[in-house]
């Protein structure tokens, strides 16, 4: 429905403006505060106009905090997450769409269910597993009674231990298991002509060859879109890195930013420096979107070229 009433236009504009203020206001506050000195903050509170101290504050982020190394962590986590998610999603969608698997429907439903179960919901159990990746195996051995037999035969039950907490792998792995990518690729594959696979078989290409020669080149834009989305979500993850990493050198930049707030009460936080840090940490995803936004749109509308 398209309405042309003038009063409606004005009302819509007002709502839009309010929304923009709501989003841009805090952003402006961040930038303004980041460019003021700590002394200014102590005297006046949060800044409503910009100052000239931004590069000072930014330099202090690099010299006085662990943010630089934490940004490297973030980069490693976001990159690995994006790449691992792309590969896993592509392969699982390929299997679901192109092969006659008996339980394909059930498998796809389970994969979709992970979209409704983000890390934030399953954080406690995920933590338990991350603290000992063999805990499900141990539990299975106990429940099935196998461990009783093993204890009788060898004198002691099996109890495997391997913690991935506070490692990069531990930061990444639980986030990879997410169905959005599989869904994205599945939808894309379904838009391709059904006979493509058969044509490739007639041409002598097996499933692997078909995947590399035909499916992969066609999926370029979907890959780019998924890569950007996952990279962003990996970069901005807060809860899981907070829980899974215990030393500052293993934490990600977003967690590191939060940790810049002083632990003791009464002390005024160095907001100009923290805000400068926030600006610096935001630059990477901003750059990412700026460079790849074309693919982001193309990939999400699911059309070739």
């Amino acid at each position, binding site marked *: 429905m398209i309405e042309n009433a003038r009063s409606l236009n004005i009302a819509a504009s007002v709502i839009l403006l309010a929304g923009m203020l709501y989003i841009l206001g805090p952003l402006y506050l961040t930038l303004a505060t980041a460019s003021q000195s700590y002394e200014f903050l102590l005297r006046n509170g949060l800044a409503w106009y910009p100052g000239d101290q931004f590069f000072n504050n930014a330099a202090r982020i690099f010299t006085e905090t662990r943010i630089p190394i934490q940004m490297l962590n973030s980069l490693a986590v976001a990159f690995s997450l994006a790449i691992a998610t792309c590969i896993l999603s592509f392969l699982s969608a390929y299997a679901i769409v192109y092969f006659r698997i008996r339980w394909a429907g059930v498998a796809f439903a389970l994969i979709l269910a992970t979209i409704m179960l983000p890390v934030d919901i399953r954080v406690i159990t995920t933590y338990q597993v991350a603290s000992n990746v063999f805990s499900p195996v141990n539990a299975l051995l106990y429940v099935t009674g196998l461990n009783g037999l093993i204890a009788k035969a060898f004198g002691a039950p099996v109890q495997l231990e391997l913690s991935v907490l506070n490692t990069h792998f531990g930061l990444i792995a639980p986030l990879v298991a997410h169905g959005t990518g599989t869904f994205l690729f599945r939808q894309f594959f379904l838009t391709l002509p059904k*006979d493509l696979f058969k044509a490739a078989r*007639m041409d002598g290409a097996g499933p692997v060859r078909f995947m590399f020669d035909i499916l992969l080149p066609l999926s370029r834009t979907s890959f780019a879109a998924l890569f950007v989305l996952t990279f962003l979500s990996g970069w901005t993850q807060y809860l899981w890195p907070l829980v899974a990493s215990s030393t500052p050198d293993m934490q990600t930049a977003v967690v590191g930013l939060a940790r810049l707030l002083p632990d003791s009460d009464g002390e005024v936080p160095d907001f100009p420096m923290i805000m400068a840090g926030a600006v610096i940490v935001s630059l990477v995803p901003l750059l990412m979107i700026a460079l790849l936004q074309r693919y982001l749109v193309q990939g999400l509308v699911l059309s070739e070229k």
Partner: protein
Amino acid sequence: MNAIDTAIRAAAASITVKDLTKAYDPQTVVIPPMDVELKAGEFTVVLGPSGCGKSTLLQMIAGLERVSSGKILIGTREVQDLEPKHRGCAMVFQNYALYPHMTVFENMAYSLKVSGTPKAERAERVAAVARMLGLADYLHRKPGQLSGGQRQRVAIGRAIVREPAVLLFDEPLSNLDAQLRHDMRVELADLHRRIGATTVFVTHDQVEAMTLADRILILNKGRIEQFDTPKAIYHNPASVFVAKFIGAPPMNILPVTGDGAALRLADGQVVANASLTGTYQLGIRPEDIVVDGKANGHAVRAALRFREDLGSHSVLAADLGGSIVRIATPFGSDIADRLELDLNFPTSRLHLFDAATGRAIPGAFGAQ
């Protein structure tokens, strides 16, 4: 004739199908046991309504569907358990199934690349096929930049560049508009005359079947209704199904009863003399009905319902004893505006079918 023509002619092999069946489960039998032999170099059209199993048959020959039981021989080689690439078949798909990200050249050369043909030979063979199909100027375009007919030609080129023993077409013309379909039909017939590949062409369009085929294989619910030349199928249909499927408008089928001396319509009018008793189905083609003629002395009276002028001729629909008969007559005849018609069914043009099985009864009116 250049090198690729001779190579394909030499590679052409016969297809023999023995006791072939296909069933997805015991309840859904797509193809009951089938035996058929397609000769080397022959253009066979597999014709049938949708769901008759014609595509399944084609895909089993190609190796894209597993056979439930039975054998498929290409030449003298049993192929039913081989991978598609080892069967020597090439296929043209309904929606072309070209690789969208590859150029025309890459599309046609892909099978050669997969089979490890040296680069120079690949280029040479693709160039020869492209010349033959008039695609030489388009080799560097992508399929998205081509028209429907050009894409179709690329798909054909991709199939014949491998010099296959058997060329399979899965309703390749159904995506084209009427004019282009006609042009492609002519092109395909011409191509087959030049390269002489064993061709199996699946379609539900009887015009394609009549114009392209050396022999037509008519399928109904997976069973072979008739396998013969287009001419034989048109003039001597083996069953009511074939009679109704071939020809536009289709053959008229009327229920008749024989009293030992004559065949009578449902309303008692005598349509022909015959020493038959019992109920039958009588078939006559619309163009064989004579209006106001005295061909066998038995004129039957029918009420004209409507007429369609097609320019070259008119099609009349008339009510004859409760069933509608269609009559094709030359345009401009004065019979069109009359309400009552006297129709004559020349005995030599009549086809008689068994009422229960629908199979033709040859020789019912003497020599056919």
